[in-house]
């Protein structure tokens, strides 16, 4: 299967790979997927007092499209508010990366990951 240039670029040079302290109050963590299904994404965001995402890190176990989807997402969420980040649609990711139909689920997973990270952050601060 041929990969788009953008998928290859993110795959070859993934942005923002890494891990943040999940216990940190300023960090929200979303982990989605399952090893049995062949992809697991962990997306973490660091949120400032103003509710804007200052930094994002990811690690992904999965195919090239899954890695590219999460890498792209970390670029997109930086500088956005939590609401803005949580409203990113998988279709935008799929379109940007020119994912073929069999890989759409990778972009869905990325959307789930950012929503889960935002939810985790908000739950930490709702108590």
């Amino acid at each position: 299967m041929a990969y788009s240039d953008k998928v290859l670029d993110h795959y070859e040079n993934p942005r923002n790979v890494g891990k943040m302290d999940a216990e940190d109050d300023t960090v929200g963590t979303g982990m989605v997927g399952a090893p049995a299904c062949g992809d697991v994404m962990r997306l973490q965001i660091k949120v400032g007092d103003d509710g804007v995402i200052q930094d994002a890190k990811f690690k992904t176990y999965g195919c090239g499209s899954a890695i590219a989807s999460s890498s792209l997402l970390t670029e997109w969420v930086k500088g956005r508010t939590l609401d803005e980040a949580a409203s990113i649609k998988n279709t935008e990711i799929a379109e940007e990366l020119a994912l073929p139909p069999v890989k759409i689920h990778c972009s869905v997973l990325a959307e789930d990951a950012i929503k889960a990270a935002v939810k985790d952050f908000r739950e930490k601060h709702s108590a």
Partner: protein
Amino acid sequence: MNSPIYFDYAATTPVDPRVAQKMSDCLLAEGNFGNSASRSHKFGWEAEEAIEIARRQAADLIGADPREIVWTSGATESDNLAIKGIAHFYQSRGKHIITSKIEHKAVLDSCRQLEREGFEVTYLEPDSAGIISPEVVSETIREDTILVSLMHVNNEIGVITDIGAIGEICRAKKVFFHVDAAQSVGKVDIDVTAMKIDLLSACAHKIYGPKGIGILYVSRKPRVRLEAQMHGGGHERGMRSGTLATHQIVGMGEAFRIAKAEMHAENIRIMALKQRLWDGLSDMEEVFINGSPDQRVPGNLNVSFNFVEGESLIMSLNDLAVSSGSACTSASLEPSYVLRALGLNDEMAHSSLRFSIGRFTTEENVDFAIGKIRAAVEKLRELSPLWDMYKDGVDLNSIEWAAH
């Protein structure tokens, strides 16, 4: 070095130059282009003679009589002809068939078709090393069993079945025994008489012959009869009609002749290359061979790199042509049914690669591959949250994953 380097000899092989030469002699007007069924002129006689030489070469490699060889389009057709042909011809004796869960789709799908027609099929489970034991076959044979169909060597894991012992059991219980030998001819010694095999499928393209040609060995003693699947001019003892493809057949004959002459020396060389490849990988953490390490063909190495997903690994290894046990590239997300049948969990099956080594693989190729594989696995583990968790001592089985 040409890139990518070919490590997929279990999928297919390039044609040996000696084979290509023989084939090209059977195409042009000045060559041996005739129809072997033409009885009235030299063109037909010469084609027939070339085909009969090839038939003997094919028979010689498996210890058969040339009259027991039926030319087909390949192992898939041979499997279909053997399984459906026996089932349809002998259905008055019984309608039970035994095969295994790790067979090639040509066997499994033929059996599925027979199930739709009212036959009953038992799919045997291999043990965790991928071996189907003769005892299990023996216990499964019933009064109404008419056929046992098992592969000699598994295409994904390269594990060798004890065909001789199973042949003994089937013969004693008067059940026909079909062997899919697509992955074993020219790699493992076969003697259809000593192994008491009634039917055997093989093809040319796995051992440096052309694609599109295969054989079905059909025993004459004891006599095995088949219902033909392809009707026409009554070629091949009526079992498979159609004008014989002289160039393909001659190519297969030459490939089989070379295999018989060279396989033992070649196996030693290929085994050493496989060992070199494994030695270059086995000191990495969480790397496992799938299938029996000993009872397998020399050229096959099926490895799981835990915490790395197979498709992304292949993407990183774009300098190598290898095959993945992960079916992520297809629309279904199901990993290899063969690896699942060995009891591997989904993630280990998703993390597997099959390297298959062959006639034109060199030490230099292997060393190059080792370097590429190690770098790719290290890179992807750096990216893998599962590797992180493993390193932090988290038991992945303790986590409730949201399957999707």
